[in-house]
């Protein structure tokens, strides 16, 4: 693990990519759940006994990994100003969490 740890002066791009990707993953989860509850999409059951939750969570996880991969590739050798990344990521995370709460589905 010591070998993978970068110096204090190394570019922060990969850290910013992981944070923003987590926000995108959270938002993807909330959005997929909301759209599923609204009847716009119907996530398939990837494992029958567990039902549609397997499709919804898998799709959100795949969206998170793709977003992380793309952002990491583009930013890993760059310094990214965090002043926009932090608030945008937090908003995405909060919206994503709100989307997974059943009382919100009742408003649809």
């Amino acid at each position, binding site marked *: 693990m010591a070998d*993978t*740890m970068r*110096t*204090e002066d190394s570019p*922060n791009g990969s*850290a910013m990519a992981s944070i923003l990707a987590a926000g995108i993953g959270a938002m993807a989860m909330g959005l997929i759940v909301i759209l599923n509850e609204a009847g716009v999409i119907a996530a398939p059951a990837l494992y029958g*006994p*567990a039902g549609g939750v397997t499709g919804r969570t898998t799709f959100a*996880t795949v969206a998170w990994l793709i977003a992380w991969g793309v952002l990491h590739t583009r930013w890993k050798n760059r310094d990214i100003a965090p002043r926009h990344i932090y608030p945008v990521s937090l908003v995405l995370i909060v919206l994503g*969490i709100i989307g997974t709460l059943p009382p919100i589905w009742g408003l649809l």
Partner: protein
Amino acid sequence: MLFSDRSLWTMAHGIVLGGAALMGLAAALFTLYARASKELAASDGRESRALAVLNVFTAVALWLTVIVGTYFVFPPYRATPPEGLTDLSQFPRSLIQANPDTVWLHAFAMETKEHAPWIAAMLATAVAFISVRHGLKLRTDPSLRAMTATLVAICFVLVAFASLLGIFVNKVAPLQ
């Protein structure tokens, strides 16, 4: 046999894995908070490596928690009882939904538990990655440290809330 397979999976999900994740998140939060002091911020790389190990452990525990919960505990919970069965003790969802006073345990508690913890697992993975890859920067960059601590705090609240809901569900309709 004292405990059934279903009961053992539930304990592994909620107590062993979920409990380990909660403890890991609490320890990580404390460590990041303590780093605000100048003495700890100037400490050597060993402390950064220890935090990285802790955060990787926590992320792995959280992923195992949600995977075991979704693929091993949830199926027997939501199983449909045979037509005409009156003893619903082996079918927790149906048991909960049969009583108007406990319907919310599925409609709110279990429905929340199905998705929100996956977000916590994503956040914990980002924290683990930052700790491994940018552990030294995390020690000296206050804004990165604050953002990482915020992610850990959100994670902690999500996991604690899901755990509490799980306790409520298991109290009324345990997987036996």
